[in-house]
């Protein structure tokens, strides 16, 4: 943290000593983390390590018990319009896509811009079509979500996030619910986004994606950040026993 502060930059996302419990379960233990503008941070770790919960606390899909979360240096509001406004600036892509089932693809992408950002409908539609083109599903614009494959749905979900012009996008295991042959097309879109300089926080099990795209890899286990570093350093030369065990266990797959 202090290193960045010295550079005089305010991180887009910053967590300070965040703690969270689910009942007796201590799911987040004193988490400190910051994501700089344009940075791609990938969080990996065994299931149940709290990585998904961590991701969800950042736009308050989950509440925290202690600590602070700052977006662009401003504390995350607890409720009401302020919270909604802030969420509009942070995109989120879910494991289960969560496209609005009663709207067609185009409406899914324009809903945020027209209703939350109050932009003119026509303008929003035009941009939405461009975004759909960019993620490669423009031909599906007038279908409903259930008619699309999982991979297509997830790409639409990414377009829906992008339409809000977010400062950063949170990816909560975006490929975990997908059939293997569709994982690639989603990762491809995410890779392009990263190359264009989007600030991203990605929770994933896709180690190759982490290796290729991440600026920084964070390894979580049992609610704590165990290790963090560049992909090269982490994958080639993990410092901790737990990280080595984890990497071995997935190599054996």
């Amino acid at each position, binding site marked *: 943290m202090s290193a960045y502060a010295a550079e005089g930059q305010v991180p887009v996302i910053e967590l300070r000593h965040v703690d969270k419990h689910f009942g007796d379960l201590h799911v987040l233990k004193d988490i400190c983390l910051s994501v700089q503008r344009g940075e791609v941070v990938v969080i990996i770790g065994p299931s149940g390590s709290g990585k998904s919960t961590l991701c969800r606390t950042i736009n308050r899909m989950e509440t925290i018990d202690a600590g602070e979360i700052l977006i662009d240096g401003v504390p995350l509001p607890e409720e009401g319009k302020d919270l909604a406004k802030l969420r509009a600036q942070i995109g989120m892509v879910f494991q289960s896509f*969560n496209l609005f089932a*009663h709207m067609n693809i185009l409406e899914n992408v324009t809903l945020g811009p027209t209703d939350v950002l109050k932009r003119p409908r026509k303008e929003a539609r035009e941009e939405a079509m461009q975004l759909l083109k960019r993620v490669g599903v423009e031909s599906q614009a007038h279908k409903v979500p*259930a008619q699309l494959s999982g991979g297509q749905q997830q790409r639409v979900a990414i377009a829906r996030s992008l339409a809000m012009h977010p400062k950063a996008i949170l990816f909560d295991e975006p490929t975990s619910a997908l059939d293997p042959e569709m994982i690639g097309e989603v990762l491809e879109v995410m890779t392009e986004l990263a190359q264009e300089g989007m600030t991203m926080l990605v929770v994933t099990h896709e180690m190759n994606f982490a290796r290729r795209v991440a600026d920084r890899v964070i390894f979580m286990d049992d609610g704590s950040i165990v290790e963090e570093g560049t992909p090269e350093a982490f994958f080639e030369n993990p410092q901790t026993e737990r990280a080595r065990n984890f990497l071995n266990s997935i190599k054996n797959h």
Partner: protein
Amino acid sequence: MQALLTTWKLTAVAFAIAFVLGVLITVMRVSPLKPLRFFGDFYVQIFRNIPGACLLIILVYAFPYLDIIWSYFTCVLIAASLIPAAFCSEYLMTGINAIPVGQIEAARSIGMTFAQMIRKIVVPQALRSSVLPLTNLLVATMLTTALASQVPLRPADLTGLVAHINTHAVGGVTAFFISAMLYCATAVVIGQIGNLIDKKVRILR
């Protein structure tokens, strides 16, 4: 014909009241306020389980003892709306419960306020998946309005008219069949329209 119109009128008005009341009760049942939830649940359990005849008799014969006197028409209307309102709320609750939690989270994640989320996501989805149950409810409401035959109503409703004809004249078989056909035709038409709407708005999941 007059009787058919009375039945239709009763049905339409009763269903309209039942729908509005049902929505209101549903709002109470999903509100964050425990007493309102309790009241809504209580209402539904009472009126879902009370026999129509029982309710009508209480309204017509028992309420005057509480110095509440309503016209027969009002009593029938109230009985034929309070009960469907409970079912209406049940169907709407089912519709709401069918919405995956992820839809709510997605709405939040793009910065929608609570009101926007309710208006744009929750209500449309709940309504669309309630089309068929509500169609059936409309038919059920029509059948409930036959209760009107239990009180002297002028002009009489369809069932009341048949009963009247049959008590006062012989040869009511025809009257019975004609009215049965009229009820039935109305029900089938309502059902068809419901199916049509449902096909248009059904949500694929």
